[in-house]
């Protein structure tokens, strides 16, 4: 019986090898068209001026930052229940990408709010919860790298991801509660699309698609690397044992 109860990585490696070039091309296409379209060909917002252009980076990044964590949660559950190594490695692969998207959401959110709040960083409830999410990502990645035995690492990080998700939701609610008096709500709420005029709407959708595709591409690349790293570790172990 092979020591690794793999979710047939062979099939995963083959299919991902075939899919990757297309995904990467499509992601690039969506990103470039969406950003250029949004940056150059949409009018200024009458209130926000040109800062509304930041929407094309902030909203997709913020959405992906949350979806990345949800994906990691699902992958952790699959690992705990079905012991598929690929899903545990996919969760590990997604974390740094999610971290980067959270950083992008934070920076663009802060820059966007600057004219309205007068400071480069305001403790707005939404931005603060992304800051907390950023800390969760840091903890998750740190735990993965701190444990040698990869099966134990997968189990422990899965538990952390589940507990972390509950506390992330709690923090999201607590931060709203905590910030009642400090700042009036942002005039253009950062996540909701419905109050965005339709001229901004289509390029935003393209950007969101671009970010989703970019996320999937990066996760596939990194998961393949994790699988290869796992196999390498195994071979090196054998060499030492011989």
């Amino acid at each position, binding site marked *: 019986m092979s020591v690794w109860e793999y979710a047939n990585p062979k099939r995963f490696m083959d299919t991902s090898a075939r899919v990757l070039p297309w995904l990467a091309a499509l992601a690039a296409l969506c990103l470039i068209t969406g950003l250029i379209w949004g940056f150059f060909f949409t009018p200024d917002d009458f209130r926000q001026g040109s800062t509304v*252009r930041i929407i094309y980076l902030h909203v997709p990044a913020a959405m992906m930052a949350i979806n990345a964590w949800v994906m990691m949660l699902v992958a952790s559950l699959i690992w705990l229940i079905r012991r598929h190594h690929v899903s545990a490695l996919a969760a590990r692969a997604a974390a740094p*990408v999610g971290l980067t998207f959270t950083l992008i959401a934070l*920076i*663009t959110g802060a*820059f966007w709010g600057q*004219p309205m709040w007068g400071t480069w960083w305001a403790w707005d409830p939404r931005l603060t919860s992304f800051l907390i999410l950023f800390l969760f990502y840091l903890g998750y990645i740190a735990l993965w790298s701190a444990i040698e035995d990869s099966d134990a690492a997968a189990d422990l990080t899965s538990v952390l991801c589940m507990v972390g998700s509950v506390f992330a939701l709690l923090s999201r609610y607590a931060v709203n509660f905590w910030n009642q008096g400090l700042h009036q709500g942002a005039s253009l709420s950062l996540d909701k699309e419905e109050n965005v005029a339709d001229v901004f709407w289509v390029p935003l959708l393209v950007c969101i698609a671009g970010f989703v595709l970019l996320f999937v591409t*990066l996760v596939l690349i990194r998961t*393949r690397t994790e699988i290869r*790293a796992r196999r390498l570790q195994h071979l090196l172990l054998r060499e030492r044992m011989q």
Partner: protein
Amino acid sequence: MDKVFAIPLPGFVDWLLAYLGKYAAQVLGSYMASLILLVAIIWLSLWRAARTKRALAQAEARAGGRV
């Protein structure tokens, strides 16, 4: 070669700043920061993928057919 670039570049920057109006700093700042971060994560992932692939190939070569 650089003459070709010299003319439109300053013109382009001035045009861009005018186009973005009052909040040019915010918009350019966030776009620059985001692009740097995106390039960083993409490059890091690709670099690590290549390095691991190479190390694995060597290990498999060393291990010969016995794998």
